């Protein structure tokens, strides 16, 4: 079935990396950081906001920047989410940036870059589904989703694997979320910082 082949081709890890991931890695590589530590929370706030804006304008908005507080807020949301995996939060990131432990500010910015990359991958996957799945009849949608779940079975959470494909034929937001989370866990495209 050509349709499912094109969905799977578009969702191939290397294809996603080429279309989405590379420009995020390039943006991260282009950002110069002249000090790897910060002296105060205000400085930390400024650096993460500046980096977020740089990364965001380089590969998300293609030019339109955010206000300082908007950028800082979004950066902190990403840091909170990422550091929560280790039982920490944005203050853990600040402490690392203060004394340079665990890679210092460099790794904090890496974490923001990975967070932005994950958001872009989610948008890309959503777009693939919208383009390839949404315009089809109910039966075709169910068939595509059934094949997709079967093909991606090892990566998807068991809760998704046991669900009926019909559940996702109309609203596949949860399926996309599950797929991106699976990618984050298993794909080499994402770094586990």
């Amino acid at each position, binding site marked *: 079935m050509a349709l499912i082949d094109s969905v799977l081709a578009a969702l191939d890890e290397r294809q996603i990396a*080429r279309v989405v991931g590379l420009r995020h890695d390039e943006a991260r590589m282009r950002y110069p950081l002249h000090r790897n*530590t910060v002296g105060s929370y205000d400085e930390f706030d400024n650096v993460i906001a500046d980096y977020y804006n740089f990364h965001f304008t380089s590969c998300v908005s293609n030019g339109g920047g955010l206000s300082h507080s908007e950028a800082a807020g979004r950066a902190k949301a990403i840091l909170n989410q990422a550091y929560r995996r280790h039982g920490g939060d944005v203050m853990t990131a600040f402490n*690392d940036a203060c*004394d*340079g432990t665990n890679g210092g500010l460099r790794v904090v910015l890496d974490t923001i870059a990975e967070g932005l990359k994950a958001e872009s991958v989610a948008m890309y996957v959503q777009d693939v589904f919208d383009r390839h799945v949404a315009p089809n009849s109910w039966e075709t949608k169910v068939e595509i989703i059934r094949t997709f779940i079967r093909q991606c079975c090892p990566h998807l959470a068991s809760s998704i694997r046991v669900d009926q494909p019909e559940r996702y034929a109309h609203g596949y937001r949860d399926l996309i979320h599950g797929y991106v989370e699976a990618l984050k866990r298993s794909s*080499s*495209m994402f770094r586990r910082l």
Partner: protein
Amino acid sequence: MTAIGRARTALVFGQGDGARAAISVVVAQARERAGGSNLSFCGTAAFEEPAARHLRETVLAVVNQILEGLGLAKPSFDVSVVNLGAASAADLGLSISGFSADTAVALAMLSAALRMPLPEDVVTTGHIASPDGDIRAVRSIPAKLGAALQVPEVRAFIHPALDEDNSMQALSPAERERIAEAVVNARGRLRLTVVGDVTELLQATVTEEAVVLASLCSGFFEPTGRAAPQGSRVDDAVRFLSEGNDGRFWRVLEAHLLEGRCAEAQALLLARCHYQVRRRQYPGGFGGKLLQLVRSLPPATRRLKTSFPLLAMGHCLEVCRFAGQADHEDVQRLLDAAQGRGMTREKPAAPAPTSGAQGAADANAAVDAVLGEISAQTLTETISLPIDAARAAYVMEGVLAESHDAFHDTITAFYLHLLQHTGAVITLTDRHAGCDEAFALLEQAFADKGGSEAAEADARDGTRGGMRFVLDAMTDRYKAEQQVKHVKRVLEEILDPQDWSAREAFIAALLSRIGPQLPSEIRAEPPGRYARHYDSIVRAYVRSVDQVRQLFRTL
């Protein structure tokens, strides 16, 4: 010869709740004049007499002390304030009565006298309250912040500590709350910096590039030894401007070259060249450092964004005239680096040994000394920080290696960059030495991932982040290696001069202290087993430090 300095400040009209502010610019013109320094005012906007007297008696004194400490002549200054549009339209001139423009006037005068440009996105306010450069609070901070927020190009606001000497207690709680609220509201849009003296003012305002260029042009690149009295605020300011300029020079030059700002890099090199010619002195080791820096640039940046010659041959020769016999090799390296030729690679000499506790009679005391030198904090500060900073500063345009040669060059260049930032002394050797070491490091970094061939595949494919992933892996491996070397060196220094029984006692004491961090198979062995061969303890310790750090991260 005259020079102009400009600094933004906020001017206030009215008082209390009705106070309004506007952003204006203080302009200072410095003129060399025989017969001593003085300060005069010009322009439509005028300082009232008490303010003018304060500027002459206090602010000018601070500026002159700094210039004196830097060994520079004290010029005369003409100071004016740009009249506000509303006043000009009404054919009126501003009248300035307070002291809050002191910081801007001082900065404008220093900028003019030192030929040191100030960033245009910064507004300062503050009263210079003593000839030693103390800065104290001024009124109407909320109105001034409001005015700064109205000007889109203003990004930073520098103000005095609001209650340095508890005098703000005189304000009503409502007023104090209004100030605090204004500061919090502005924080999201402006970078706010609190300063307490003239050194902090300079640190918050001037960029490294401005200081290094000014020091080269005005001649205070190296400390003169004519600083103000030790411990004074002005002395700190003099030291801030005159010390560490060589380090600043290399940092700024590297940033320009890495970020592809070749014209700025050339201007900086030219300024250094003129400075050395004026001093009739060849900077020892300059050629080697420059060659090293050029070779450590990412190959694509060197090829596409760096225009050679970085320094015209004529200028190089001017500096080389002052080289001595010992500088012969370095001169050749300078010419090579400036012309972008002879990119031969060099390998690092063995790092200089660090000082360690020596000849400790008591094993426990020796262990205490050693543990201080190999603690997680010491390893982070002395080893990890410079390596992480080096990685963080290394910028590249793309993450994909286009060819085997490009990959090869990037790996070698990055390795040289790491060496340069970790203080490794590089000496001339055959062209493959640095390259071989770089690939040995890469091989180790990818030992469990398929080796250097897998690294190249990653760099060319990009799925894992291409060169970004490869360079990060090299950085982490280099960091671990350097930590092992450091710990080993510390242990060697303490153990090598000892006899067998002292070594055994030391190892026993060490194992009892760091034992819980080591694997059980090491703890189970008798101490004598490690008295001569302690490599496994070192590696296990470094690994455990990293693991403990990861654990703390989760708490």
